[in-house]
């Protein structure tokens, strides 16, 4: 009898294991209905840590494009080239996409040592190891973070001077909910439509000469960790204005460039709001 008792327990375990299966017949995806945000929407910064010699990275770039198409202005993608796969080579990979700030972020957050491609969504989760997300995890994190109301809102204005190939930027940060922490404002420049070599393991040949690199971080105007907004306690309605200027490098095409701004909690590095405008708009 004792044997039978245990035998039934094992058969029960077998049945539970076998029954525990969800077979999806299709459709395999669902349409995300993003509620229209008319005014002062929450906007998420999606950092894609990548490199032109990283053969799996184009899949991550495609995911960033997919999320941009779904969430529109509420997702601000930035491709940060850093680490081993971003190094230049004399043969094909001659374009240096790295930046000082991007290298510092990569070292600090540990993205390339965790293996490209990966990324961060609002740098949420730092300093726990779950701040680094695979591209397959970006959508769920974006969706989760967008459920919250924005703590702040950024308005940007850009004036591009074609004769000097320079841009001046003014920003106005409006605090929407009281915050008891120091805040930093970061301003970076990105460029899309750059045609250059990229390794892509799904392509044949794998080294693609005319790959289109988008949302590539070109420069930070506020150093590695941004400029302090000046207080440690902010109340609803506070307005902070800042202005910046930058000379664009000769090879950069202003029409393809954007200004990306984001506010981070200086203590935790978590980003509470992002914004993006085109330089020539």
């Amino acid at each position, binding site marked *: 009898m004792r044997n039978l008792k245990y035998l039934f327990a094992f058969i029960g375990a077998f049945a539970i294991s076998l029954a525990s299966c969800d077979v999806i017949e299709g459709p395999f995806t669902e349409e995300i209905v993003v509620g229209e945000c008319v005014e002062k929407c929450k906007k998420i910064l999606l950092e894609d840590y990548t490199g032109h010699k990283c053969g799996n990275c184009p899949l991550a770039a495609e995911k960033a494009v*997919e999320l941009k198409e779904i969430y529109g202005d509420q997702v601000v993608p930035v491709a940060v080239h850093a680490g081993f796969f971003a190094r230049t080579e004399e043969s094909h990979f001659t374009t240096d996409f790295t930046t000082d700030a991007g290298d510092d972020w990569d070292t600090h957050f540990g993205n390339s040592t965790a293996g490209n491609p990966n990324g961060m969504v609002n740098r949420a989760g730092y300093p726990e*190891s779950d701040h680094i997300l695979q591209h397959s995890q970006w959508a769920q994190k974006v969706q989760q973070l967008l459920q919250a109301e924005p703590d702040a809102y950024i308005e940007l204005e850009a004036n591009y001077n074609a004769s000097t190939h320079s841009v001046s930027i003014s920003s106005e940060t409006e605090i929407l909910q009281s915050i008891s922490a120091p805040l930093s404002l970061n301003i970076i420049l990105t460029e899309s439509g750059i045609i250059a070599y990229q390794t892509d393991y799904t392509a044949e040949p794998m080294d693609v000469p005319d790959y289109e690199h988008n949302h590539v971080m070109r420069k930070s105007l506020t150093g590695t960790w941004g400029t302090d907004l000046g207080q440690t306690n902010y109340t609803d309605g506070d307005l902070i204005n800042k202005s910046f200027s930058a000379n664009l490098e000769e090879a950069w095409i202003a029409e393809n460039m954007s200004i990306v701004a984001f506010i981070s909690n200086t203590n935790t590095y978590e980003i509470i709001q992002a914004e993006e405008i085109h330089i020539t708009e």
Partner: protein
Amino acid sequence: MKKILYGLLFCAGSIFAQGIQNGQLNGNFQSNSQVYYEDADLGISTENLPSERFLTNSFANIIYSTSNFSAGMRYEANQNSLLGFDKRYNGEGITYRYAQFNKDGLDITVGNFYEQFGSGMILRAYEERNLGYDNAFEGIRLKYSPFKGIYLKSLVGKQRLYFDKAEGIVRGFDGEISLNETFEALSEAKTQILIGGSVVSKFQKDLDPIYILPENVASWAGRFNLYHGKWILGAEYVYKYNDPSATNNFIYKEGQALLANVSYSKKGFGFSLAGKRIDNMSSNSDRNLKGQEVSINYLPALTKQHAYTLATIYPYGTIANGEMGIQTELNYKVKKGSFIGGEYGMGILANFSNAYSIHKAQIDEDTALGESGTLGYTSDFFKLGEEKYFQEFSIELSRKVNRKLRLVGSYINTHYNSKVIVGYDYHGMIKANIVVLEAQYKLKPKHSIRTEIQHLSTEQHEGNWAMGLVEYTVSPHYFFAFQNLYNYGNETKKVHYPNISAGYTKGTTRFALGYGKQRQGIFCVGGVCREVPKSNGISLSITSSF
């Protein structure tokens, strides 16, 4: 540590107190450390060196056991992990602890455990320290034999992920019957038959807003082994239901794996043939992780595991998304006294293995091959793909010339698809020929010398390599060795990789000290691989057990 061990013993309950008193305590310790230096030849500058300069991986296992009870733990201290090991191993702590007891034939394990169902293609948790691989379960495992010849196992647990645990929960059941043990009428039969089956299911919550993901993913397997005289025949088939993951680019196709083997052996002669087909069989505790760190299953490489240095430059790593291949091995001992066999006979060991892509076709005109959010592709089970991943032929001749001298000669021909296997370093199909001559000579009692001369020739990748080794052993305490690898065919830079090492062994304790250069490459064990970075430094290894 003591407190935890006592705690485990206490938790086992007073029922077992009698047995606990007459137990044994044993354990082992291992520490591998290295100091890293700059090296202009290897392109290692101050910026490339680890900030710590000195890195160490250490662990100790302590196990207390009696006839029907055991409890143990492993303490690891990686401060910080050696180069080439994942940095998420940095840290220290108790990474493995368990209590196991057997009552009325029911074997119960709580805490951490390793396990394998069948060949492992459906479930295998194991540790391979040289790879930095440890996917142990933490949970509960039961084993029971209700009737003679019937063996049942069930488990539920989460897998180790560095110093954390993977998100998914794994449930599994395995049953095996030995017909000859169970049925009296077959107990004397010449043919022994084992039949087994497994079911494994994992759970991970679906938080993705785009994909409709199966939260419970099941797989099942059936297997048999048949022993008849000098023959062994075995096979296992695994089926996995839809398991979209980062590894398969989130396709919903089922996975399948088939492994079959036949072998024959008698004195002086042995033969084996194995074949496999793997299709979309990556199975991870966390669908978002692309690596192998929390693999639920193990997919064998079916290639020869080499020990000679130059023969390990191009090792094969299993392609979980799809491959087909065979391996056959023949060993023959030429009789002593014959012209070829000489006074002591000669051993011949020949091996051939290959791996190809599997056939894949679009599911329809509008869907790209392997497109995420679809069924991915269709595949004809018996049809090979167009791409060769790997092929290798090797032959080894070993002959004892006289009482003092033994010679081993090897030839290996390798075809290595670097695009598929290594991925990041595109050199197309690397074709290499490797020749090795090894000599072992006894100088006098307890004193012996061993030499290796190796050469690898290839027109691809880094070109030709040569290698020489001299090892002097004074049994049972000392050894001294010097070796040099020379990549003389490298068009970019011809680099020497010299190494000198010495060791001392006393009882169960061994010290080994080395200094030299390490080439950059891939290190694989059974198809599971890790990258090894180039380095220059002093290494110290200590192992001990009690």
